[in-house]
């Protein structure tokens, strides 16, 4: 673990891998040190922003250094079952890239259990690492200018779920009609960091 200064009001914690990020994020969000404002987990880092009137870099860095960043045990966290329609425009390409049939791609994608690692890019866009290692495919060489709302995509070892139309370079497997983002709900995102997800073919 490496704790770096990030301006006057934040620190950036760099960790060995995504599992440690998820573990530290969970530990710190369950029992935040005094003065912590926001936590932003990402692939290798956890951003911790703070109120400089209530804590300091040294105090926070000390508290974080003493925190166990052990990996999250599987089976913890809220479970969301997402109805998935596997009708994406890139299903055939993913099948070709992986050497599997389209049916087998769908079967393997839906058979795996996932945990949301982080959100980003746009409100409520969730990144789910892992899944079947055979389904690891690169991004599309040319990103789409518009990925439809509810799209489920694959890229670089992640499944991404897009609440709203946006540009994107993911290989689209299908879509979900689940209400992924609702500003009148608390929290507004259905898929928050730490949420367990299963895709249920509809």
């Amino acid at each position, binding site marked *: 673990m490496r704790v770096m200064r990030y301006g006057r009001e934040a620190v950036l914690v760099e960790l060995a891998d995504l599992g440690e990020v998820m573990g530290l994020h969970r530990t710190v969000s369950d029992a935040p040190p005094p003065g912590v404002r926001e936590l932003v987990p990402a692939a290798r880092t956890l951003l911790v922003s703070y109120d400089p009137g209530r804590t300091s870099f040294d105090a926070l860095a000390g508290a974080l250094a003493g925190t166990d960043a052990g990996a999250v045990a599987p089976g913890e966290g809220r479970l969301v079952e997402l109805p998935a329609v596997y009708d994406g425009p890139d299903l055939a390409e993913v099948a070709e890239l992986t050497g599997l049939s389209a049916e087998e791609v769908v079967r393997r994608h839906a058979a795996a259990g996932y945990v949301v690692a982080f959100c980003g890019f746009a*409100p409520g866009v969730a990144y789910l690492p892992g899944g079947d290692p055979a389904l690891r495919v690169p991004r599309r060489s040319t990103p789409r200018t518009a990925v439809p709302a509810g799209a489920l995509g694959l890229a670089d070892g992640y499944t991404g779920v897009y609440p709203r139309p946006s540009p994107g370079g993911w290989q689209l497997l299908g879509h979900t009609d689940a209400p992924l983002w609702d500003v009148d709900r608390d929290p507004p995102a259905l898929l928050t960091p730490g949420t367990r997800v299963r895709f249920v073919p509809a």
Partner: protein
Amino acid sequence: MIEILETGPLTTVQDLGRPGFAALGVSPSGAADRAALRLANRLVGNPESAAGLEITLGGLVARFTEPATLALTGATGPVALGGRQAFLNGPLRARAGDRLVVGPPAGGLRTYLAVRGGIDVPPVLGSRSTDVLAGLGPDPLAAGARLPIGRPTGEPGMVDQAPVPPLPDEIVLRVLPGPRDDWFTAPARRRFGTVTYTVSPQSNRIGLRFDGPVLDRVDGDAELPSEGMVRGAVQVPPDGRPVLFLADHPVTGGYPVIGVVEPADLDLAAQARPGHPVSFRWVRP
């Protein structure tokens, strides 16, 4: 009610933003020049967090359908209320039917309008701010928009005219190094802290872009996994030209952050218009 007749290039509703949702991909947003919005609110006796209008490069024409107390702060330019010249940085009284005309500023970029009682549009995730990147909050204002005025909560303002220093000819922003300053060569780090950049026309509420010397990386091929971004972060994309993130910055980004501008200097940065000279000065933690 305030009726919007003309908006200029961009007029949005802004308060102090919606902190607390960064982990869900939502930036805090809010007024780009927070000090100017806070002052405008104090001048009319509002809580500092009340919603007002952020008027980019002037061009606003609005009509008050009811009597109102208002104040304008930030970028300074010609202002008329009810057909008479009016002044910034002090409370103004509008009669029912008065038109407010905010002309293009002579200095600065963003003028703020506060109205006693605040702009009372429905909040989204606890804030009335328009986030132009995330598409949250009210749409940018267009002619024909009607904005309700809320009920006053605080005591009326006691100040007639607040002293505000003019925008300096060259804006100097203090920067704390890191977290990724070690991605840049020593000459690049030195250059960043000594040269003068100019603000690029591609700047907006998301960030200030700059024209000027390129900042070289130690390893041009290295890739950084996306990581959290903050307001004030100076990110350097592969073209080597720094981008300073403002209110509507993305929550994560995949380019190294060479340093972070002091929070106290960000309001000044939000007033830099395209072509304005800006330099950065390294400071110690």
